[in-house]
């Protein structure tokens, strides 16, 4: 058996005895006061006997501290049967001398008072049980029976005072259970005698939903949580939710986790969501919120991570079947133990109990991611403020565990989509909005990122399609003008293409015309050049002829002068 080491409270003060009950040790800052009696009071059926029995059993199993359970109301066999369903094997512990159960029958009709008496018999039985086991833990459940069974109340009270002093002297940590009184904590005022530590268990029904709460009324010598903490009793015993309000001091990650849709990753700074962040996917009915969440879960599990899928609307098999139709095989992840479904109708219990249940599963399963699909169903069991309060605690808790969470939320189509989420959206780091756009008698899905804290994200509206190959984001329409979707987009694209073609052709024609004109002009220029050359040649010829004529005329004149004997 695993034995946990006993630790006392970190701060100096009184020594504490850890109970082993989840959450109770946290709110008491280490456990019950060691060596002193603690009073557990509450109405009938609120779990006092269970808490006391768990204290003893866990003390024996986990802390190696034997314990004695003095039962005044149930027999040993009844107790064993009652706690068997919690996995506490009482007969085995008794055989191994780790636990002793002593049933004390106080039957008023059997007892006739004939003079002075004291309760030394009880002391002797208790001492015998404690000594034979070396017990360190004792439970008396419940002392109210002594008041009912014994005729002389004065003697009973005196003896009780003696009993608690004796228990303290024995050095055992004791739990005394007491039934809640009308105006006092316990019906017979046991809180007078046990004033070291008093814990109150409450079981309230509000709006037809029952919630259990634990409150530490007083705890001498120690700091303790003072609020009411929700508690849950299930097949493993009592769990107290010790986080009422956490400080904003969780660690942050600098790594990203893929969304499962590559092009959506591209919209988120190219890498995906921040690890450990909270993501809200909201949209109208049928817009594809669960599909986006499933894509994320599928890709995470395919990489070997664990994911918890909290569903308040559909059964696990329905989700698996529906997601298979778009190409996500969630069944194989379930079989490998990487994906776990927790499907529960919100109205099953109150908000607090959902919180405790979630806390319990996450602590035990340790997933890397959580999908809550959808959270809008919670409005059946609480108003907006309460839901926001619960989600705040959920997110605080999950961020402390570095769990990436996707919440899907249904918005009604009529109102402005962004407005209806204003309460919860401030808790979210990333907000993906899905919408159905109606155009030309068809509806197409678009998504856009309203916000994504801490990263550069796309501000474009993207159309996305669900097919049996998964989710795909359609190419961004890069034409001028508004973004079109669906058939309108296709027709617009075709139109754009045609226009581009027409324009190109016109351009080409113009180019040809100009080229032609250029050639024409060039031919003209060439002809003029030729003419110019001709004229120059003629000019030269004329000049030569003129020179020749002049020469000839001069010679003729000289000859004539000679002939006429010009003197």
């Amino acid at each position, binding site marked *: 058996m695993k034995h946990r080491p006993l630790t006392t409270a970190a701060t100096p003060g009184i020594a504490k005895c850890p109970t082993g009950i989840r959450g109770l040790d946290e709110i008491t800052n280490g456990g019950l006061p060691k060596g002193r009696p603690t009073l557990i009071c509450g109405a009938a059926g609120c779990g006092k006997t269970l808490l006391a029995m768990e204290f003893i059993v866990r003390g024996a199993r986990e802390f190696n501290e034997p314990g004695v359970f003095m039962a005044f109301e149930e027999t040993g066999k009844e107790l064993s049967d009652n706690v068997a369903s919690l996995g506490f094997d009482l007969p085995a512990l008794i055989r191994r001398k780790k636990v002793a159960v002593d049933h004390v029958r106080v039957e008023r009709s059997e007892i006739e008072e004939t003079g002075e008496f004291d309760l030394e018999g*009880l002391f002797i039985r208790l001492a015998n049980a404690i000594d034979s086991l070396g017990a360190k833990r004792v439970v008396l459940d419940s002392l109210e029976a002594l008041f009912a069974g014994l005729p002389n109340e004065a003697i009973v009270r005196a003896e009780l005072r003696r009993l608690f002093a004796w228990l303290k002297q024995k050095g055992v940590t004791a739990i005394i259970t007491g039934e809640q009184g009308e105006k006092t904590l316990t019906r017979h005022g046991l809180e007078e005698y046990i004033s070291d530590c008093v814990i109150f268990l409450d079981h309230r029904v509000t709006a037809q939903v029952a919630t259990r709460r634990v409150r530490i009324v007083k705890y001498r010598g120690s700091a303790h949580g003072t609020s009411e903490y929700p508690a849950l009793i299930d097949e493993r015993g009592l769990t107290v939710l010790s986080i009422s309000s956490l400080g904003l001091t969780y660690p942050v990650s600098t790594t990203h986790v893929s969304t499962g849709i590559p092009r959506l990753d591209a919209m988120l700074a190219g890498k995906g969501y921040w690890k450990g962040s909270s993501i809200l996917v909201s949209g109208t009915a049928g817009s594809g919120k669960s599909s986006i969440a499933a894509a994320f879960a599928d890709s995470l599990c395919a990489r070997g991570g664990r994911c918890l899928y909290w569903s308040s609307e559909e059964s696990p098999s329905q989700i698996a079947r529906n997601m298979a139709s778009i190409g996500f095989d969630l069944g194989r992840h379930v079989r490998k133990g990487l994906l776990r479904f927790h499907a529960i109708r919100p109205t099953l219990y109150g908000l607090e109990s959902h919180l405790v249940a979630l806390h319990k599963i996450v602590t035990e399963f340790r997933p890397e991611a959580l999908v809550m699909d959808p959270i809008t169903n919670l409005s059946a069991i609480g108003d907006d403020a309460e839901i926001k309060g619960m989600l705040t605690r959920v997110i605080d808790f999950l961020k402390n565990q570095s769990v990436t969470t996707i919440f899907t939320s249904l918005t009604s189509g009529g109102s402005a989509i962004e407005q209806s989420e204003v309460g919860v959206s401030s808790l979210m780091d990333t907000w993906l909005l899905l919408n159905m756009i109606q155009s030309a008698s068809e509806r197409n899905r678009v998504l856009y990122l309203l916000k994504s804290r801490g990263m550069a994200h796309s501000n474009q509206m993207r159309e996305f399609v669900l097919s049996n190959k998964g989710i795909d984001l359609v190419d961004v329409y890069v034409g001028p003008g508004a973004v079109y979707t669906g058939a309108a987009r296709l027709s617009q694209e075709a139109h754009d293409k045609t226009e581009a073609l027409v324009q190109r052709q016109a351009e080409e024609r113009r180019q040809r015309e100009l080229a032609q004109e250029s050639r024409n002009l060039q031919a003209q220029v060439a002809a003029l050049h030729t003419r110019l050359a001709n004229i120059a040649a003629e000019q030269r010829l004329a000049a030569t002829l003129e020179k020749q004529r002049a020469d000839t005329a001069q010679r003729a004149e000289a000859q004539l002068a000679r002939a006429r004997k010009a003197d």
Partner: protein
Amino acid sequence: MPNKPKEPPAERWLLRLYVAGQTPKSVTALANLKKLCESHLAGRYEIEVIDLLKNPKLAAGDQILAIPTLVRKLPTPIKKIIGDLSNETRVLVGLDVRPA
């Protein structure tokens, strides 16, 4: 021949007194018990004194809570009386003894 009516057989009384050491209450109880038995059950009683300080395990068997406790083991049914037995009437009623 007429049948002689049989006398009811003498009842055998077995009384067990649980004490815790020699406290004044225990001593008183024993003294009172002896006196009572001599006066009302002469010759047909047997007193057993169990000191729980010496035999603590025996307390669980008879479901002993208070000290002193007187248990009438025989005749059945078992009856329990707590206290130092100073109130004789009560003791007789409790033990269901017809005063002699």
